């Protein structure tokens, strides 16, 4: 080990890098109104008003809609269900390094009755498929599904196997697909962020029957 050529390893001194060219121009809004707007509640109000106008909806209803959606998108509880390799990365995601708890999602409920999100993490074998479907059916509305990894999306490397279902979207509806084999935890977190966007756009009226 002592014979390793130390000179080969180029050491970059972080302090000497000129960071000014990487800095992004941030537009600062000085007026009080726009500062207020950027803080949570008022933003919600403005957003609700926009939405109400767009959808020709009652503003109060749109506001309720906003609040409920806000609750849903910030408190997504996944169900503890792992199928294969990707489940280990799911565990990684909830551990200290990546910490899904920051998004309020560390409450991995063991029972599908209390969870909102199903991670299909891994290969869905033919034998597992009906059980996964049942698990999905046991979850209360509203519920979301994220298909993680190439196996869950299309069968992945096992696509020509006799015992593997090629894609979980054949049995349950999927909201978001995360490619990778397995995807890195960052990709999982990104999928969570995408899901939050999705929920934000989705009106609560869809499940409450008030949208019509």
């Amino acid at each position, binding site marked *: 080990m002592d014979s390793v050529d130390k000179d080969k390893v180029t050491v970059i001194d972080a302090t000497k890098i000129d960071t000014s060219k990487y800095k992004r121009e941030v537009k600062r809004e000085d007026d009080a109104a726009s500062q207020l707007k950027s803080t*949570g509640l008022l933003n919600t109000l403005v957003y609700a008003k926009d939405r109400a106008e767009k959808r020709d909806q009652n503003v109060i209803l749109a506001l309720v809609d906003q609040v409920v959606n806000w*609750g849903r998108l910030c408190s997504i509880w996944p169900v503890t269900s792992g199928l294969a390799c990707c489940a280990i990365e799911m565990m990684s995601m909830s551990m200290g390094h990546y910490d899904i708890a920051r998004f309020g999602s560390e409450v991995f*409920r*063991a029972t599908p*009755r*209390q969870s909102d999100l199903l991670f299909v993490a891994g290969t869905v074998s033919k034998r597992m498929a009906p059980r996964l479907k049942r698990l999905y059916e046991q979850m*209360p509305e509203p519920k979301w599904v994220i298909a993680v990894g190439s196996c869950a999306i299309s069968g992945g490397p096992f696509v020509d196997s006799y015992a593997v279902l090629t894609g979980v979207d054949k049995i349950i509806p999927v909201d978001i697909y995360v490619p990778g084999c397995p995807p890195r935890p960052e990709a999982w977190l990104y999928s969570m962020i995408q899901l939050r966007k999705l929920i934000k756009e989705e009106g*609560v009226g869809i499940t409450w029957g008030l949208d019509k």
Partner: protein
Amino acid sequence: MIFENIYEIIAFILNSAGILQYMQSYSDALGISIAPKLIIILIETALLLVGVALMVMALTWMERKVLAHAQARLGPMITWYHGLLQPVIDGVKLLSKEDLMPKRADRWIYFIAPMIAFVPALLVFIPIPFGRDGAIISDLPMGILYVMAVSAISPIGILIGGWASDNKYSLLGALRAVAQDISYEIPMVLTVIGIVLITGSLSLQDIVLFQDKIWFVFLQPLGFIIFLVAAVAEMARIPFDLHESESEFVAGFFTEYSGMKFAFFFLAEYAHLFSIAAIMTTLYFGGWHGPMIPMIPPIITSIGWFTLKVLVIIFFTMWLRATVPRVRVDQILDIGWKVMIPLALFNVFITGLLVAGGVL
């Protein structure tokens, strides 16, 4: 001004604001002179509800944060400052969640079980003195007896909830929970006897007033240890969290509950946690006693001390959760019946001797 309880405080505030007289004359004219009293009681109830709800929310947030930091994580971060709004958000979400009921569930019992679990957890707070000068809902003369009796109702809610779900996990979880609750109720009551022997009063206010010089932790060290273990068991915290025992019975007795009913069980659990910590503070840590700060009304300071002590106890249980594993069901009952109860009886015996000998 010295008040007896919160009722008098509310009455005094309303009186000095001139509202009470107005209400009194109005209701007298209508012929329902009891109405102002009822309104005050309603205000009192609302205060209790809001207080407990706020406390429960704070506790769920605290639990997640303490656990996260013990595990080298951050916990909820993005909902407002360090995720402070996370409990509110969870509530909103659970409220808007579909409420499922199993097909073969016993519908009426299934529906009523969360309330039966939740209401006693709330009622326990009635005789607990939160602070000096009347920060107490009602100073019952046999307060400690009342507390023990009421908190013993919660397991019934758990049992019927588990039974009505028509699920084996739920039933087994409920049976475990009830077995554990009942076995730890006994040593708990027995240790309280030690305190009652010393103070000679069942009133919690008297017990707190007795501790102005020395806390019962130092007078009853053995009793305190037994009470602590029993309290952790009653709170259903790890290492005694057989109510939920996630790795065995999925989610214990509330496996089938979803949405708001689950939220009620959840609330009950944390209200119970809070109430038992409050009882422990009252019995062993001198209740609201603590150095009073000048310029601040003593009622505020004393409530502050009380809350601080309760939070320290709760922090301890959370710390436990981050550190130790769960005890098996037969071991938990073994400890309860074969160790705790004899020790508690021994404690009563020693205390009785000391009291009779005039030492205490």
